[in-house]
């Protein structure tokens, strides 16, 4: 017994004192997953509660929302604040629907451009805001749903997209860089109504494509093309973000050549 005890005592102390090297990582992972899961659960129930509140969309309701959420930068009657926010006279319901409906407005912080984020208002509230802003001065209206069905001619749409849009948004709608931190966003997964509204209102750096430039039918064709891209995977295999030679070259130089070098070293590495 005495013989057995002697080595056993330090070992049992060591076992109690030292954890498995992966224990810390496992503990952190469990902690993160449970916190994140609880947060996701909580926030989804919270948003479900807010969206269950339904009110009639109206310009009066919109005016109140505007005063509470937009007036700081755009002025109490949407006349604009010099150096802070532009006047909203004449921007129309389509601009409100696009800017608020994609989460770009209200602006989270000053930056090169307003970025897409979680939408802050319910659909009814957005309609109220749009109705209020449209009541101030005539502007582009929210497009008719018959142009948003993505059932136009995708090949005409593709040609128009290549001529008018592809230089900034990339031929596959993957987006691209502009100057000084501005960029043309990716168009995959964007709602048809928001694509249409962006064309008629020209948000931020984007130019306006009015109905004389691209007719509503042509706009519907462009939407059809973009939705076709969303639905149809790239026939050539992995598209690597559709960014062309940048991502493809990076992939083949790092992973392709790296793998070849590694395999060459590995072959018969145990020859000695």
């Amino acid at each position, binding site marked *: 017994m005495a013989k057995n005890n002697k080595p056993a005592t330090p070992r049992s102390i060591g076992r109690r004192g030292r954890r498995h090297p992966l224990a810390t990582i496992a503990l952190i992972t469990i902690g993160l997953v449970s916190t994140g899961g609880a947060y996701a659960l909580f926030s989804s129930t919270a948003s479900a509660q807010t969206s269950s509140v339904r009110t009639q969309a109206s310009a009066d309701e919109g005016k109140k929302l505007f005063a509470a959420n937009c007036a700081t930068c755009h002025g109490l009657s949407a006349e604009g604040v010099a150096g802070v926010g532009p006047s909203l006279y004449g921007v129309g319901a389509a601009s409100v629907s696009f800017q608020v409906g994609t989460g770009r407005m209200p602006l989270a912080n000053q930056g090169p451009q307003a970025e897409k984020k979680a939408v802050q208002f319910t659909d009814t509230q957005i309609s109220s805001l749009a109705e209020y802003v449209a009541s101030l001065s005539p502007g582009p209206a929210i497009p008719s749903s018959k142009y948003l069905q993505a059932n136009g001619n995708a090949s005409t749409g593709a040609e128009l997209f290549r*001529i008018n849009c592809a230089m900034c948004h990339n031929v596959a709608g993957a987006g691209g860089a502009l100057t000084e931190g501005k960029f043309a966003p990716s168009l995959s997964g964007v709602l048809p109504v928001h694509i249409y509204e962006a064309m008629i209102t020209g948000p931020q*750096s984007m130019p306006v494509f009015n109905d*004389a430039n691209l007719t509503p039918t042509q706009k519907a064709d462009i939407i059809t093309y973009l939705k076709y891209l969303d639905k149809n995977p790239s*026939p*050539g295999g992995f598209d690597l973000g559709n960014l062309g030679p940048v991502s493809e070259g990076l992939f083949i130089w790092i992973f392709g050549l790296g793998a070849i070098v590694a395999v060459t070293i590995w072959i018969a590495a*145990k020859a000695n």
Partner: protein
Amino acid sequence: MAQHDDSGTTAAAGSAVVRNEPASAKSGTAVIPSDAFENPGLPPHRLRATDLDPKTDRVAERRVYTLFFLSIVGSVFAVAAYVAFPITPGDTNSVRLNTVFLGLGISLGLLAIGIGAIYWSKNLMRGDELTECRHLTRGTEATRERAVEIFREGNQESGFGRRTLIRNSLIGALVAFPLPAVVLFRDLAPAADPVAQLEHTMWARGTRLAHDPTGVPIKAADVTIGSVFQVIPEGLNDKPDRLEQKAKAAVLLMRLKPEDLHVSPGRASWNYDGIVAYSKICTHVGCPVALYEQQTHHLLCPCHSSTFDVTNECAVIFGPAARPLPQLPIAVDSEGYLVAQSDFHEPVGPSFWERA
């Protein structure tokens, strides 16, 4: 080995070096430091498993030729796959199957050869390091003399140096022989004068500005502030060489607030109520400059990020372009359509030798 010239000077730069020089040595005399770098030579050679065990050697040999046979299988498979999975026009899935199996076969064919060769050289070829000395580039004196003698004999026997008429006529014939090729290749250039073609575009007085690609003419009233139109000359689509013409005549039409434009004296009549038209062909290497930032009024070239300021008559504000984009003078005809006043006043696109 130990007599590197620089070893003495580097060691003297304040480092703690034990030197076995005599104390009486004058400064500047050659010093042999005791820690001079010695050539360690090659590491001791370790025999490989295949060198020691004939059984392993046979296994390795079998692996190598199996890989080479596998390569043959891959190549044959690629041919079979090409026949077995044909490309059906209009069926993208057939393209995918064809590419995947053809690619698998070809890559197996090539990869197995490569892997086999590396395995062969690492396991079976001679494994110890050896040094091969290069022979001198210069031949021996005897060889050099013999070479000169051969030339002299050849000259004497053929009479190349003596029969000067034969020699000179041969040289003349060899010079004249490639001339037909020069004439033929010259004819590959554009038949008409390329300079005239580069200097002028399809635009002329009264040509209407039309939508790309439909060719429908554009009314001035259609162009709202903040708009950008991709423009071609009306009638371009009926031209037999429409792609060549489009490559020169493509235009970008924008409308700005008239007070935002800085117009130089000679160009006061070139815009119409804030509507301006500029060549879309970059003055750097001719890419289509079409990225228009509506708020900053900057035009960007997608190829090398040349940036043009539309408010300042497309002056270059960034990038490699050398000149502003040429402006197309525009006006409005009696029916309200936008028309060109004339062609561009300077050649569009990148520089060329004869450009004035």
